[in-house]
C-alpha cells in the first residue's frame, strides 16, 4: 500500500507514529493488530453505553468493517484531529448503524402516516387548540407540496422515528441521499408555510 503521509509538523507525535507504522511494510502487522484492539474496545464501550447489554458479535463486526474502511482511507487522513479520534468515528458509525438496524429487524417501516393530523397533534406538546391553523397548514403542505417520495421520507423519519440509515437500507439508497431528500422536503414545506402567511421564527441556539 502506498500512503501519502501528512506533513510531519501537522501531526502530534502519537498520530505520526500511527500513520508511519500502519504504512510501514515492517511494522504494519503489529500496528494493525493494535488498531484493531483499539477499535474493538471502542465498539464495546459504545454498545454498553447505548444498550447496557452484551453484543460482542456486533462489536467484532463493527471493528472488522471499521478497520477495513480506515486502512482504505488512510491516505485521506490529514491530521485535522488526533489519529485515534479520526479512527474512532469509523467504528462508532458502524456500531450506530448496526444497533439501529438490529432494533428495527423484523419491524415494518411506517412510510406514511394514516392519520397525519392526529400524529402531528399528538407530537405537539402545546396541544391542538393554539396550533390548529399552523398544523392544518403543515399537514396540507405535507400532503400537497411534496412528492410521494419526499412525503414518505419526511413522515417516516420525522414523525414515525424511523432511523435514516434503516430507511436507506430498506429503500436501497444511502443515508446521504435520503437526507438530501429530507432537506429538500423541509425546504418545500417552509416555503409552503411562508406562502400561507406563517412566519417561521429563527431557531434559538
Amino acid at each position, binding site marked *: 500500500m502506498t500512503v501519502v503521509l501528512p506533513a510531519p509538523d501537522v501531526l502530534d507525535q502519537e498520530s505520526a507514529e500511527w500513520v508511519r507504522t500502519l504504512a510501514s511494510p515492517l511494522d504494519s502487522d503489529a500496528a494493525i493488530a493494535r488498531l484493531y484492539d483499539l477499535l474493538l474496545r471502542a465498539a464495546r464501550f459504545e454498545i454498553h453505553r447505548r444498550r447496557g447489554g452484551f453484543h460482542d458479535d456486533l462489536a467484532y463486526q463493527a471493528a472488522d468493517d471499521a478497520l477495513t474502511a480506515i486502512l482504505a482511507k488512510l491516505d485521506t487522513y490529514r491530521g485535522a484531529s488526533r489519529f485515534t479520534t479520526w479512527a474512532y*468515528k469509523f467504528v462508532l458509525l458502524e456500531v450506530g448503524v448496526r444497533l439501529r438496524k438490529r432494533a428495527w429487524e423484523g419491524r415494518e417501516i411506517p412510510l406514511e402516516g394514516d392519520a397525519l393530523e392526529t400524529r402531528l397533534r399528538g407530537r405537539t406538546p402545546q396541544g391542538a387548540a393554539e396550533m390548529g391553523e399552523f398544523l392544518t397548514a403543515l399537514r396540507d403542505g405535507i400532503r400537497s407540496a411534496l412528492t410521494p417520495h419526499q412525503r414518505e421520507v*419526511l413522515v417516516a423519519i*420525522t414523525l414515525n422515528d424511523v432511523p435514516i440509515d434503516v430507511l436507506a437500507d430498506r429503500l436501497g439508497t444511502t443515508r*446521504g441521499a435520503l437526507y438530501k431528500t429530507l432537506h429538500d422536503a423541509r425546504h418545500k414545506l417552509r416555503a409552503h408555510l411562508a406562502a400561507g402567511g406563517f412566519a417561521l421564527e429563527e431557531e434559538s441556539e
Partner: protein
Amino acid sequence: MIDRVLGPRGPELTCEQCFEELDRYVEVEMTGGDPDAAVPGMHAHLRGCPACADDHESLVALLRAERA
C-alpha cells in the same frame, strides 16, 4: 416536533461532509474552542439529522471516557 419536521434553518452540511469533519469538530468542542466557527454548518446539520447527531454524541462520550 415542529422543528423536527421543518428542520434547521440556514446552511448545513451534508451527511458526508458531517462525517468528514466530525473528528475535528469534536476535538475543537472538547478543547474549549468554537466548533461552529471551525466547521460552519455542522451545528445545523446535527440538529436536522438524528443519525449524525447520534454519531456526534457517541464520539464525545468515548473521548470523555478516555480522558476521565
